[in-house]
């Protein structure tokens, strides 16, 4: 296990920021950490990176305990904190070299140049960090996290403040990284989770409320399957309720309907048979993906 968290808790006074969470992440997995603001995502990440100690429970990275062998853990973790703190007076290269020295790296020159290229900082390399736009600062943050080639990357909102083009590039970068490394990232953007993560952990009020793959989560939601269907004719809405398992029918216009199905099996087969028996001409039949955002709202509200 790359990361192992057991009964981890953090209590601030009366508030349980993180409340007995347990999960394991095997090597090479990209895990998306989801949750509303203040759910305990950043606190968990801070405990994993040895910045703050847990009130109770254990966190370990690559088999090293965060409390007993913090230096071993810190050596193996690349961390991008929330809000991406940087030194505005330093030049990009100067900062990355400083980070490399902090990790006691030797001959880090080529590696620093490589990171500048990989994160697309090349055109801005002569600038001070304070002169960079938010997207480029975010890249500097990512570059320093990946610099020492860590086994585990912990990224707290890595794509905040990026424009759509940069977003795609950085996601691609994280995806490539995830092939060899373990990545935990937190985000609010659902498409990002769908595009990037092998697995999603949703936490709410310090507790894990879901821990599953993207498709598993979609299926897990209570909403069942939703199908959009259109006919050449305009059948009445009520007739669909004859099909067993159909919970709700919404009329979009004369010919199109949205059908929510809670029964077993594939509603599409049933709808086809329904069309045959009622001599209707089926024009279109489309499975609507249950929205991850809905799942998120259901679980955290």
């Amino acid at each position, binding site marked *: 296990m790359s990361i192992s968290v057991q009964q981890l808790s953090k209590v601030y006074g009366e508030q349980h920021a993180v409340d007995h969470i347990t999960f394991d992440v095997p090597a090479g997995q990209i895990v998306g950490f989801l949750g509303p603001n203040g759910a305990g995502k950043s606190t968990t990440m801070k405990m994993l990176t040895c910045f703050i100690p847990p009130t109770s429970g254990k966190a370990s990275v690559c088999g090293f305990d965060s409390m007993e062998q913090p230096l071993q853990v810190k050596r193996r973790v690349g*961390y991008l904190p929330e809000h991406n703190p940087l030194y505005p007076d330093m030049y990009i290269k100067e900062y990355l070299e*400083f980070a490399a020295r902090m*990790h006691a790296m030797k001959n880090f020159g080529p590696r620093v140049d490589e990171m500048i290229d990989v994160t697309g900082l090349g055109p801005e390399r002569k600038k001070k960090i304070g002169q960079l736009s938010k997207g480029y600062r975010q890249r500097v943050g990512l570059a320093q996290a990946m610099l020492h080639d860590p086994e585990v990357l912990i990224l707290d909102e890595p794509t905040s403040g990026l424009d759509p083009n940069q977003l795609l590039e950085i996601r691609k970068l994280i995806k490539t990284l995830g092939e060899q490394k373990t990545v935990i990232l937190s985000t609010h953007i659902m498409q990002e989770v769908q595009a990037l993560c092998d697995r999603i952990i949703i936490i709410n009020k310090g507790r894990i409320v879901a821990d599953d793959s993207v498709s598993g989560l979609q299926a897990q939601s209570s909403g069942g399957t939703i199908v959009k269907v259109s006919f050449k004719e305009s059948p009445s809405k009520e007739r669909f309720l004859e099909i067993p398992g159909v919970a709700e029918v919404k009329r979009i216009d004369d010919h199109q309907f949205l059908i929510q199905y809670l029964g077993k099996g594939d509603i599409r087969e049933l709808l086809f048979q329904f069309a045959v028996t009622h001599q209707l001409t089926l024009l279109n039949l489309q499975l609507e993906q249950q929205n991850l955002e809905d799942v998120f709202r259901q679980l955290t509200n």
Partner: protein
Amino acid sequence: MIAIFRKELNVFFSSLIGYIAITIFLVANGLFNWVFTDTSIMSSGYADLQPFFNFAPWIFLFLVPAITMRSFAEEKNTGTLELLATRPVTDLQIIAGKFLAAFTLVVFSVLPTIVYYFAIRELASPTGNVDTGGIIGSYIGLTLLGGSFVAISLFASAISNNQIVAFISGLFLCFICFYGFDALALLPVSEGSADAIFNALSINQHYQNISKGYIDFRDVLYFSSAIALFFLMTQTTLGSRRW
């Protein structure tokens, strides 16, 4: 530790901080010791650097908290402390790196005043008739005093994330340690053993002792334990995020 030392030293000398600190120290000392007639060594009638060694700590009192006030306060304020603390270094290494950088700046500002020594050597009658041993002792004392001020001000910087608070509390703490204990010892209420305790705690007392040119083990021990004590207090303060 070396990485932090280099970075901090870079901050001093790639910005104006370092140059301004050194310039102000030298200009103030130059004016008070050689130009202003009331305090000038020239008008004292003795070929002696004592006026300089009496005056320099008072400039350090303002200068040292000023150069160290951003050390931890700024890192805490901008959140970069989180990045520093999650690198594979201990808190003590971070403190030591920052201490050494500020201490180097203190040494750099004292170094050019060695010219003063050659100046009074020439002024002495007969030429060269100066208390070289005493002056060497005084320089060692001044450096140790600078070191303790740096340790104290670093602690002040660690307790707040506001630089102004860090500066004012650093100044106050240095003042208490340097002069406050001295003054307390002189109070009529603190006769007898209290007097001795206050004197033993005072930076000024130990500084004066070393300035005589006789380097006593106890005085050196005093300065090193003062520095160690404030290191420890800074470490505890930084570690308070763990409580």
